C-alpha cells in the first residue's frame, strides 16, 4: 500500500496552524443577537413565577423567553440514532428545575454584556422541593420526573432512568463450585470533557428563509432531526454546517445550544449566537456518568474464570441522555474481554439532583475497565500469580464467539460478537518489555518515595453494530482530482485526512488529489456522526466502496475510449495490453466534454453488524511519596491493536491524547458538589486537567493485526486508549505502596489515609 499506513499530513492542518477563521465562532454576522441562559441556583424546585419585566426594560434587551414560550415537547438531548435509546425526559424549558444549573430562561440582547445584565434582572420565585444527591438512595427518594409526559424512563416512580439485565450460564451454581471467589466494589466520579472550545452555535435565516445552524457538533444530522422535532419546524428547511470543531470527546454529541439558538432565530428572525462560558461547561453541560461497579469472580484451580457477576449503579444526574447505552457499553465491553462461561449483569441508571452526565470518550467503557482491571490485579495478588499471565490465560482469542456481547448489544439484544482479529497477547508482551516490568518489579521498595508498576488490558468497539451508518459521495474533476463529500464529522480527530487517505489509496492517486468536504447536511450524504469509534471502520468503508465504484467507472470509460476490452489501472492511468494507455485526466476530460458525456461519480453507504474490538495494554510506572501521598506517574506505555494503522502519526496522537484524560480521571479530575448540590470546582484552577508539565514520558506502539471486515484491515483507535491508564495507575500504586484505592480519583488524602 502506498498511502495507508504512511505518514500523511492532515488535510486541514495548514489552515489551523495559520489560525484561519475555520471554527464556528470565526464569522461576522450582521444584526447578531446574543443569548445567555439563566441557570437555576437551586437543585430541585417548581418555578412559581418568572418576572422579566425589569430585564425587558434594559436598553438592548430584545426578549426573555421562559417555559411559557415553548411547547411541552419531551425529548432527549442525546445525539444518537433514531429512535433514541435514551429516555425522553427533557424539555427546552420546563416549569421544574432539577439540578443547580438547570435552564430557567433565555435572555436575548444586542450584546453579551446586556444579556448578562438581563439575567441579573430576571426575578424567579422558586418553590423548593427535597433534593437527592446520593445515587445509592435515588430509588427511595421523591420522584424527580412527572409520570405523564416523559417516555422511555424505566421506572419513573423509583427514579430509574434505565435498567439492563443479562445472564449467560448460571453464575450462582458456578460461584458455588468455584475454587476461588473474589468480590469488590469500585467507583468512578463525574469528570469533564474539557474540550478547549466551548459549546458554540450560531444560527440565521438564509436568503430563502431556511434556518442555517453553524455549530460545534459531533452529530450534524442528529442536530437537524432533533431541532426540527423540538421546534416543530420542517426538517427540509434546516441546514446544519459543522466547521472545524475545537475538541468534543462526546461533549458535543449533545443537542444543548442548537435548539435554543434556532428557537430564538425563528422567533426574532435575526441571527443569534450562544456560547457557553467555561463555568457553564463545568456545571450546566455534560460529564462522564459516575458509576459504582461491583464485580464478583469465580475461578477454578487452573485460574480460569468460571463466573463473573457485574452490578452497575450509574448516576445520570438530573436527566437521562445516554443513560441506558453508556452503562450497556460499560458492561458489554468489560464482559467481552475475558472468556467466561457464566456471566450475570444487573445494571441500573438512576436520577439524582446533580449535573447531567452524557457521552464521554469511551462511553462507559472506562467506568467498566477501572473496576475490571483493578479486580484482576487484586485477584492475581491474592493468588500470587503474575497479573499479565492471568490476563493472557483468560482473555478472548481469535475466532471466539462472545455470547454476552450479543445479549447486551446497544442496550438490548444485539448482533453476534466474533473475534476476527486479536493482538492483545502481543500488546501485553510488548508493553511488558517497554515499561521494564521485571526490573521495576524486582526493585526492593524502601524509603520515602516508592516506585511501582501496573498493567491494564482493555477492549472497545468500532462503531455501533446494526445502527451506525456512514455515506460518501465522490465526483471526478478533469485534472484527476476528486471531491470527496462525507457526512463523517472531523472533531480534530483527523477523520477528513484518514478518509482522504482511503480514497487516495483506492483510486491510486495522491492524497492532495482528494478534496474533502464534510458534515454539511445540505451538501454531504448522511452519517450518524462522530461517536462510538465509528469513523475509520464505518465511514472509512463507505469511502472505500464509493472510491471502488468511481475507479470501476474510470476503467470502463477508459477502455471505451481506448477501444479495448481489457485494461488495468496503474498510478492514474488506464493501461491496455500492448501499452495503449490514457490518463485519468484525459478520461475525465473526454467524459465531460466529448465522449458520451457524463459525470464520473459514485456514492456508497456502509453499515455493519460487526463492531470489531481494538485491544490495548497500558502499563504505568509510578512513584508514590509515602509522606505526602502524592502519586507521580513516571511513564505510561500504551500498546494497541487497531488492525491496520491508516495514519501512524494521527493514531499515535489519539493514544497520546487519551492518556492524560484517563490520568486526570485517575488522579486529579472530579467534580465536587456542596451540600446543596452546587458544583464547587467550575474552572481550570480548581478542576485540574493535565498540562504540559504534568505529563509523564509516553510510549505508544501498535501491534500488527488485520481486521478482515475493516477498510484495508483497520479497526477503530479513538476510544480504546482511554480505558487503560486509570486502572494501570491504580495497580501501580498498589505495587508501590500496597495501598488499594477503589474509588477514583486517587488523591493524596486517600493514599495517605491508608498508609498511616
Amino acid at each position, binding site marked *: 500500500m502506498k498511502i495507508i499506513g504512511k505518514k500523511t*499530513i*492532515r488535510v*486541514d*492542518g*495548514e*489552515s*489551523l*496552524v*495559520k*489560525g*484561519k*477563521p*475555520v*471554527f464556528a*465562532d*470565526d464569522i*461576522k454576522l450582521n444584526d447578531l443577537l446574543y443569548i445567555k441562559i439563566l441557570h437555576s441556583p437551586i437543585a430541585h424546585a417548581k418555578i412559581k413565577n418568572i418576572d422579566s419585566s425589569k430585564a425587558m426594560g434594559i436598553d438592548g434587551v430584545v426578549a426573555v423567553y421562559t417555559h411559557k414560550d415553548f411547547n411541552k415537547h419531551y425529548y432527549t438531548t442525546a445525539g444518537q440514532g433514531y429512535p433514541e435509546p435514551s429516555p425522553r425526559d427533557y424539555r427546552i424549558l420546563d416549569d421544574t428545575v432539577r439540578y443547580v444549573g438547570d435552564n430557567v430562561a433565555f435572555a436575548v440582547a444586542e450584546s453579551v454584556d446586556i444579556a448578562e445584565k438581563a439575567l441579573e434582572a430576571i426575578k424567579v420565585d422558586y418553590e423548593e422541593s427535597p433534593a437527592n444527591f446520593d445515587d445509592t438512595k435515588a430509588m427511595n427518594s421523591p420522584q424527580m420526573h412527572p409520570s405523564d409526559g416523559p417516555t422511555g424512563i424505566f421506572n419513573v416512580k423509583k427514579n430509574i432512568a434505565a435498567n439492563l439485565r443479562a445472564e449467560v450460564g448460571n453464575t450462582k451454581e458456578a460461584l458455588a463450585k468455584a475454587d476461588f471467589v473474589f468480590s469488590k466494589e469500585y467507583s468512578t466520579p463525574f469528570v469533564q*470533557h*474539557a*474540550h*478547549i*472550545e*466551548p459549546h458554540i452555535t450560531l444560527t440565521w435565516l438564509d436568503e430563502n428563509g431556511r434556518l442555517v445552524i453553524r455549530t460545534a457538533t459531533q452529530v450534524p444530522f442528529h442536530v437537524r432531526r432533533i431541532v426540527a422535532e423540538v421546534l416543530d419546524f420542517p426538517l427540509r428547511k434546516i441546514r446544519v454546517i459543522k466547521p*472545524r*470543531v*475545537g*475538541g468534543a*470527546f462526546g461533549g458535543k454529541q449533545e443537542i444543548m445550544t442548537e435548539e435554543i439558538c434556532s428557537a430564538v432565530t425563528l422567533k426574532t428572525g435575526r441571527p443569534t449566537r450562544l*456560547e457557553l*462560558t*467555561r463555568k457553564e461547561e463545568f456545571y450546566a453541560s455534560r460529564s462522564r456518568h459516575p458509576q459504582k461497579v461491583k464485580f464478583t469472580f469465580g475461578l477454578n484451580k487452573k485460574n480460569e474464570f468460571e463466573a463473573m457477576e457485574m452490578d452497575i449503579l450509574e448516576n445520570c444526574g438530573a436527566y437521562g441522555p445516554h443513560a441506558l447505552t453508556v452503562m450497556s457499553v460499560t458492561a458489554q465491553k468489560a464482559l467481552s474481554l475475558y472468556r467466561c462461561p457464566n456471566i450475570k449483569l444487573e445494571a441500573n441508571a438512576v436520577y439524582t439532583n446533580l449535573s447531567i452526565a452524557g457521552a464521554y470518550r469511551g462511553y462507559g467503557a472506562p467506568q467498566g475497565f477501572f473496576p475490571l482491571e483493578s479486580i484482576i490485579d487484586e485477584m492475581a495478588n491474592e493468588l500470587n500469580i503474575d497479573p499479565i499471565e492471568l490476563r493472557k490465560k483468560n482473555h478472548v482469542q481469535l475466532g471466539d464467539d462472545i455470547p454476552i456481547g450479543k445479549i447486551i448489544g446497544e442496550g438490548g439484544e444485539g448482533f453476534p460478537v466474533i473475534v476476527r482479529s486479536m493482538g492483545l497477547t502481543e500488546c501485553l508482551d510488548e508493553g511488558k518489555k517497554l515499561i521494564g516490568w521485571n526490573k521495576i518489579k524486582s526493585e526492593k521498595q524502601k524509603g520515602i518515595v516508592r516506585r511501582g508498576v501496573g498493567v491494564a488490558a482493555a477492549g472497545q468497539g468500532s462503531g455501533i453494530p446494526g445502527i451506525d451508518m456512514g455515506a460518501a459521495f465522490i465526483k471526478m474533476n478533469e485534472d484527476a482530482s476528486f471531491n470527496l463529500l462525507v457526512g463523517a464529522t472531523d*472533531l*480534530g*480527530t*483527523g477523520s477528513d485526512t484518514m478518509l482522504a487517505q482511503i480514497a487516495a489509496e483506492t483510486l491510486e492517486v495522491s492524497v492532495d488529489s482528494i478534496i474533502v468536504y464534510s458534515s454539511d447536511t445540505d451538501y454531504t450524504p448522511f452519517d450518524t456522526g462522530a461517536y462510538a469509534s465509528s469513523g475509520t471502520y464505518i465511514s472509512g468503508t463507505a469511502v472505500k466502496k464509493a472510491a471502488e465504484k468511481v475507479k470501476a467507472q474510470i476503467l470502463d470509460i477508459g477502455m471505451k475510449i481506448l477501444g479495448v476490452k481489457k485494461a488495468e489501472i496503474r498510478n492514474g492511468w488506464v493501461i491496455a495490453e500492448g501499452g495503449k494507455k490514457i490518463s485519468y485526466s484525459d478520461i475525465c476530460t473526454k467524459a465531460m466534454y466529448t465522449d458520451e458525456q457524463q459525470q464520473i461519480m459514485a456514492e456508497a453507504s456502509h453499515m455493519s453488524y460487526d463492531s470489531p474490538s481494538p485491544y490495548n495494554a497500558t502499563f504505568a510506572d509510578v512513584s508514590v511519596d509515602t509522606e505526602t501521598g502524592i502519586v507521580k506517574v513516571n511513564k505510561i506505555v500504551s500498546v494497541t491493536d487497531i488492525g491496520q494503522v491508516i495514519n501512524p*502519526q*494521527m493514531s*499515535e*496522537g489519539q493514544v*497520546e*491524547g*487519551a*492518556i*492524560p*484524560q484517563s490520568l486526570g480521571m485517575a488522579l486529579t479530575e472530579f467534580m465536587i458538589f456542596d451540600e446543596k448540590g452546587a458544583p464547587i470546582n467550575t*474552572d*481550570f*484552577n480548581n478542576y485540574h*486537567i*493535565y*498540562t*504540559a*508539565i504534568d*505529563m509523564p514520558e*509516553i510510549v505508544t506502539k501498535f501491534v500488527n493485526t488485520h481486521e478482515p471486515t475493516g477498510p484495508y484491515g483497520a479497526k477503530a483507535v479513538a476510544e480504546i486508549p482511554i480505558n487503560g491508564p486509570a486502572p494501570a495507575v491504580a495497580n501501580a500504586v498498589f505495587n508501590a505502596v500496597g495501598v488499594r484505592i477503589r474509588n477514583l480519583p486517587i488523591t493524596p488524602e486517600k493514599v495517605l489515609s491508608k498508609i498511616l
Partner: protein
Amino acid sequence: MKIKFILNNKTIETDIKPGQTLLEYLRENEIYSVKYGCDNGECGACTVLVNGKAQNSCLILMHTINNCKIETVESFSDHESLHPLQKSFLDEGAVQCGYCSPGMILSAEALLRNNVNPNEDEIKDALAGNLCRCTGYVKPIKAVQK
C-alpha cells in the same frame, strides 16, 4: 479613550470601550486565531505576544496596551510560506483540533526568541499555560524541539 499600538506590524489608533479586553478587541476585529477558552487566564487559547512575551489576552484590558507591540499568528505566515514553528507543528502532527495551536505556537515562539536551544523541561514550562485536551502535549513538545 484613544490608544495607539502595533498589531501584527500595523499601527493602530483606536477608541476603546471601558473594560474591553484585548481578546474581545481582537476577535471583534476578525483576528480569529485568538480563541476564547475560559476568560480567566487558565487555558491559554487566547495567547498573544505583547512586546514579545506570551500573555493571555483575556486578562489584558485595552488601555494597558498603549504603545505596545501585539503579535498573533496572523503575522507569521502569508499565502505561500509558513513560520518554522507552524511548519514543525504540522509536520510533527502536533495539531489535532487546532483550537489551542495558535496559542501554543506563540508561547513556543516567545521561548525560542530568548532561548534558541531549550531543553524539554524549558519547553514544557513554556507550554504549561496552554491547555490542550487532544494531543497530550507529546507532539507539540517535539515540534518545538525541532
